[in-house]
């Protein structure tokens, strides 16, 4: 079980800020494929990975990062703070 978080327009497109996901995905990319296969709103949110960023356990990482032991994965657009 892993907590999956969504922010900004990813949250709006998927329609929820957080969910617990039962998964054996080895990498972030594998998890994304599982989510996209679920429903159209996931497929729409993850259609263009180049416009997304991912953090595993609150550290920015890449989509090919492994998930072993991860408790929290977050998907969001490029940041626009400051």
């Amino acid at each position, binding site marked *: 079980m892993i907590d999956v978080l969504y*922010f*900004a327009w990813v949250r709006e497109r998927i329609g929820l800020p957080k969910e617990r996901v039962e998964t054996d995905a080895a990498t972030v990319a594998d998890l994304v494929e599982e989510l996209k296969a679920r429903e159209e709103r996931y497929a729409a949110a993850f259609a263009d990975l180049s416009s997304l960023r991912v953090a595993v356990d609150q*550290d920015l990482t890449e989509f090919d990062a492994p998930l072993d032991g991860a408790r929290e994965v*977050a998907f969001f*657009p*490029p*940041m*626009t703070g*400051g």
Partner: protein
Amino acid sequence: MVVRLQQAAFDFGAEANTFAAGRRDAGAIVTFTGITRDLNRGGLDRMEIEHYPGMTERALQAIESEARARWALADCLIIHRFGTMAPGDPIMMVATAARHRAEAFAAAEFLMDYLKSRAPFWKKEVTATGESWVESQDTDEAALKRW
């Protein structure tokens, strides 16, 4: 040596004065503050800033530590708001104090560049006709390459 993440508005000048107060060791103080811009000239109703609780604090602390590792700073301050801001409201500020102006300027620019692209904040502009997420700028990502 302070990082503050808050919903409440802050008084930029008062924070700048507190930061500078009695600083006899470091002659150079640089501040940056970002103000909620109304690019539509009266059309902006408000700006909403979303963030990632937990990661945001970690990211700001990491950026601040990195700045202190790279430059000999006497002090360093980051304040960033989340929630709802009105046009003209300060969104965030950084301040740096150093013996020489070159260090104070470089560290402040570094803090801003990293904060823009590495701290998990997202801005949404709300106008009378709708709302839209602010898009990141390619120049922001490019700005990181100089450090």
